[in-house]
């Protein structure tokens, strides 16, 4: 396990840039949607950037992730191409899925992203399976499996975590507990305090961390990754965080208070990390400003290039149903 990202200049810069890129990308998506220029539905992770970024920093490029419906952050943090992501959301032929998948189905083989998922908990058994493949082939690769607090109440969670535990699979289960599964709060959806308590039921370690603290996420996931890589099996890491925006476009926020949202907004994971690294003298004010500008420019480039790309082509809708032998 290396030192925390917040203490190393290059890593801190990279982490900050990643978080700002996620934020700007999703703000752009939100805006395109509000202006009727984007179609379908989307789930924003604004407020949760430290979780995706800290976790992916603890991974190697050849490690894999599985993601969720709220997956833009995971995708970007694992290194995806912004323009291809934006093109997918804008229903372009140059998008990651040629316009067939949209926001909930982006995958990127080049960066080890096995895919977002429209099905809550759908990715959890898949993560175990990918880890099984690595284990069977004697590779020292690890899978990081992102899912929400709501997903932890699906049967798939139970079955997958148990399989991973008994086979000592190299997987890290990362529960992004943002307090709600759509409108249902964790206080109502489960009778325990922390989701990480469930780890005991599978005989694996479980840890709960402040998911808005990039270093804390990084440290917890790094420990879990080291354990998985060493062949000692899975860990359940719970990142406590919060989504600022509604669950999806149709959310009227009737199930939570304005005060609660404001309180969590004041705990912005990005501003917090900025303050931390500036105070520690790891990055200067100017360097931080340069990162912000860079993130904004990257996002603008992605939108511009994606907009200029050709629309997805409806002429060959059957060609991808089956893979060619």
């Amino acid at each position, binding site marked *: 396990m290396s030192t925390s990202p917040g203490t190393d200049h290059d890593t801190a810069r990279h982490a900050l840039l990643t978080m700002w890129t996620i934020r700007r990308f999703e703000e752009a998506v939100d805006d395109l949607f509000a202006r009727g220029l984007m*179609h*379908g*539905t989307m789930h924003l992770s604004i407020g949760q950037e430290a979780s995706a970024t800290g976790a992916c920093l603890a991974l190697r490029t050849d490690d894999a992730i599985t993601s969720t419906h709220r997956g833009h952050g995971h995708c970007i943090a694992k290194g995806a191409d912004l323009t291809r992501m934006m093109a*997918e959301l804008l*229903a372009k032929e140059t998008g990651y*899925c040629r*316009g*067939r*998948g*949209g*926001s*909930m*189905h982006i995958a990127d083989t080049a960066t080890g992203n096995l895919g977002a*998922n*429209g*099905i*809550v*908990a*759908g990715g959890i058994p898949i993560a175990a399976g990918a880890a099984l493949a690595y284990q069977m082939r004697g590779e020292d690769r690890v899978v990081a499996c992102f899912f929400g607090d*709501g*997903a932890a*109440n*699906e*049967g*798939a969670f139970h079955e997958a975590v148990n399989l991973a535990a008994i086979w000592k699979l190299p997987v890290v289960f990362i529960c992004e507990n943002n307090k709600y*599964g*759509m*409108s*249902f709060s964790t206080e*109502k*959806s*489960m009778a325990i305090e922390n989701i990480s308590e469930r780890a005991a039921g599978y005989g694996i370690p479980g840890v709960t961390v402040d998911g808005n603290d990039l270093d804390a996420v990084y440290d917890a996931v790094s420990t879990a990754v080291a354990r998985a890589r060493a062949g000692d099996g899975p860990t359940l890491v719970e990142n406590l965080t919060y989504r600022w925006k509604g669950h999806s476009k*149709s*959310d*009227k926020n*009737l*199930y939570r208070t304005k005060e609660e949202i404001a309180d969590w907004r004041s705990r912005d994971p990005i501003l917090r990390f900025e303050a931390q690294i500036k105070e520690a003298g790891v990055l200067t004010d100017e360097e931080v400003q340069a990162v912000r500008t860079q993130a904004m420019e990257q996002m603008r480039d992605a939108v511009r290039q994606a907009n200029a790309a050709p*629309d*997805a082509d*409806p002429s060959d*809708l*059957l060609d*991808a*149903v089956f893979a060619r032998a």
Partner: protein
Amino acid sequence: MTTAGTDRVITYSEAVREAIGQAMEADDRVFMLGEDIGVYGGAFGVSGDLYHRFGGDRIRDTPISELGIVGAAVGAALAGMRPIVEIQFSDFTNQAMDQIVNQAAKIHYMLGGAMSVPMVLRAPLGSGTGAAAQHSQSLEAWFAHVPGLKVVMPATAADAKGLLLSAIDDPNPVIVLEHKLLYRTSGPVPEEAVRVPLGKSAIRRRGEHLTVVATGVMVSRSLEAAEILAQDGIDISVIDPRTLTPLDDAPIHEDVSRTGRALLVQEAPGHVGFTAELSARIAESPTIYRLLAPVRRLSGLDAPIPYAPQLERASVPQVEDIVEAATKLMKES
């Protein structure tokens, strides 16, 4: 059945909500369970204010646990309640298939009729919202293929209410599949709790030349197509089976025998779909001798539903596709 009471125009989703509210007022055993049906009012706004009217005990928000929810409904039904499950998107019935297919559908039979499972499972189906492959399927034929399940696809606001009331009364598990694009459509609906029986097709339009049989949102698309075809002198019937199981095929045989032409329209992929059953029923009966042209099916592509709007649109029959298919069928004969 029909309009015994006073009709007023309300939306399809209001009609569903009204049916649930009236059933709950009339019978303490009726309750609802599902994800985000409480304060949120349901992902599609169907449960709306029911939570405020009946409280969280009877409008019961659940964790994201479809298998558990449906299983709990099966158990409650066995123990004398009348649960209505809302599955947020019909795609997520997949999580609950054991309880639907292996349990609910078979218990009455396996126990020699000793117990039954009077539950209703409601779920939105279909494409057209840009929600892509895992949120847009039309799986009605799967359910219709399982003996022991009744399968209902209301196509109008009045039917959304009337068929649901019958489903709640029914002593069997009933799957009610509501098309997402219909929720905001409206039509005249009786104020009273007027039942529409399960197993009775509706003749939506009677024409001379060709019979369209359509389900779900394809019913209104076929009626729109009928207006366009009428301008070209093609006069079509539109029949809406309303319930896939039990299936009332007599009106289909009668009408096809009269027009000599059958165009069977569904949103679901054609391969092994519901209209294949209709086609077989025509082929296996004397109706086949009355055909002036081979039966034609118009279905969704045998592919998942894509995200991009122009791709999604191209994946399932649209009004112009129905017009074209009907015109071609007329020319063939």
